[in-house]
């Protein structure tokens, strides 16, 4: 019996190549998510500033990132600015730019939804502004924004597939290479390879959403 299509995943070094591709995907996603998380919290707090000019600048940044597709940002940074930093670094920059903006907006909303009295009772205890953020506002904000932040993180993981277009060889690109090479011998290669990539993405994203569910439950009880 001719080899069933599924073998194409395990043929030669295919599996290793796919996993290496996944590593690139995960690396871009993880680093960008971490940078976005930290900078997003800072941006979100800045966005609640009482100065209108500061808020406006943040707004322009956020809208610019939202209106212009990520793919266009990748092209601008990679081809137009021609930074010569390599595709992976440029990808991390663009995804951080995007993630920071989105995370900032999530944080802004969560901070804004805290009752004003929380801040005041912190102040009345003699906490300084920094302490009020550290002990009162940020811990509560993090709990409130968790679902939206996790959603953003999984979106970022999935969107990393766009980096193929600036020449980064990540899991999807590896998959395409394998399919192109074996399609003549194994007509069902694209089904098996893409199916396997589907499972890989699932394996990365599902634990993230499990973690968020667990944290939500823990903070609720």
């Amino acid at each position, binding site marked *: 019996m001719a080899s069933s299509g599924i073998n194409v995943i395990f043929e030669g070094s295919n599996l290793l190549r796919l996993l290496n591709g996944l590593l690139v995907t995960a690396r871009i996603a993880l680093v960008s998510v971490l940078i976005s998380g930290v900078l997003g919290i800072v941006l979100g707090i800045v966005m609640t500033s009482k100065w209108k000019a500061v808020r406006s600048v943040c707004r322009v940044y956020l809208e610019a990132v939202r209106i212009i597709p990520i793919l266009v940002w990748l092209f601008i940074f990679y081809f137009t600015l021609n930074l010569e930093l390599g595709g992976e670094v440029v990808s991390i920059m663009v995804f951080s730019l995007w993630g920071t903006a989105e995370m900032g907006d999530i944080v802004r909303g969560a901070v804004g939804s805290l009752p004003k009295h929380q801040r005041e009772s912190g102040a009345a*205890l*003699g*906490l300084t502004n920094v*302490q009020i953020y550290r*002990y009162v506002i940020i811990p509560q904000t993090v709990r409130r924004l968790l679902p939206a932040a996790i959603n953003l993180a999984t979106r970022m993981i999935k969107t990393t597939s766009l980096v193929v277009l600036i020449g980064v060889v990540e899991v999807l690109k590896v998959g395409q290479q394998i399919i192109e090479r074996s399609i003549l011998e194994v007509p069902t290669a694209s089904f098996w390879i893409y199916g396997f990539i589907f499972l890989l993405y699932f394996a990365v994203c599902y634990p993230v959403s499990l973690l968020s569910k667990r944290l939500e439950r823990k903070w609720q009880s």
Partner: protein
Amino acid sequence: MEKDILLEIKQLHKSYDDRTVLDGIDLQVHKGEVVVILGPSGCGKSTLLRCINGLEPIQSGEISLDGQSISSAGTQWHLVRQKIGMVFQSYDLFPHITILENILLGPLKVQKRSREEARRQAETLLERIGLLDRKNAYPRQLSGGQKQRVAIVRALCMNPEVMLFDEVTAALDPEMVREVLDVMLGLAKQGMTMVIVTHEMGFARAVADKVVFIDEGKIVEESNAELFFTDPKTDRAKQFLNIFNFDEEKG
């Protein structure tokens, strides 16, 4: 016998945009004195308390605590507020930490006291209000009255020189008002200096040394508590007290 003046307010003016809220308030609070501020809604009494601990900026006038001005531009509010405890209407405990941690936040992070020593004081205070066994509970597991009592303890654990109470029973279920007022009466007995804004007339009469009646941002009448309730001098105060007097309406 004249006791020391702890808190002194001179010609305090406060306005939001062009609406005047406080219009030349003069007030002295002596050490150990309980001052109750009365007045119709929107007369500025809560604003007065908020000005005293710097939650609202003032336009002119002077506030001093222990003889030191706390209304000048460079006031280090986080230092001043350690001496002024404040309890709000909406008992704002921090929902993400336990009762004990709520109480310890100020002593540990602001006053940098040792955890052991601060915890002992917190537990003594909790014991006194009968909530020691709830110290590891979260605020949402407590009733409104319990939360408000914890909020009082949280302010007390900073060892303030004066306590400000801003309508602390207004948001409570009537059945829980008493337990909170009892805590405040206990404090008064121990000689705590307090400035209280309240709508509970019976309580005001029982707890106050001095009553200050404010209307439209001005002090209309200021007198000994017993005198104020039995023989108010101004018509405005008489009219105000009558609102709370149902017996006469019927009789």
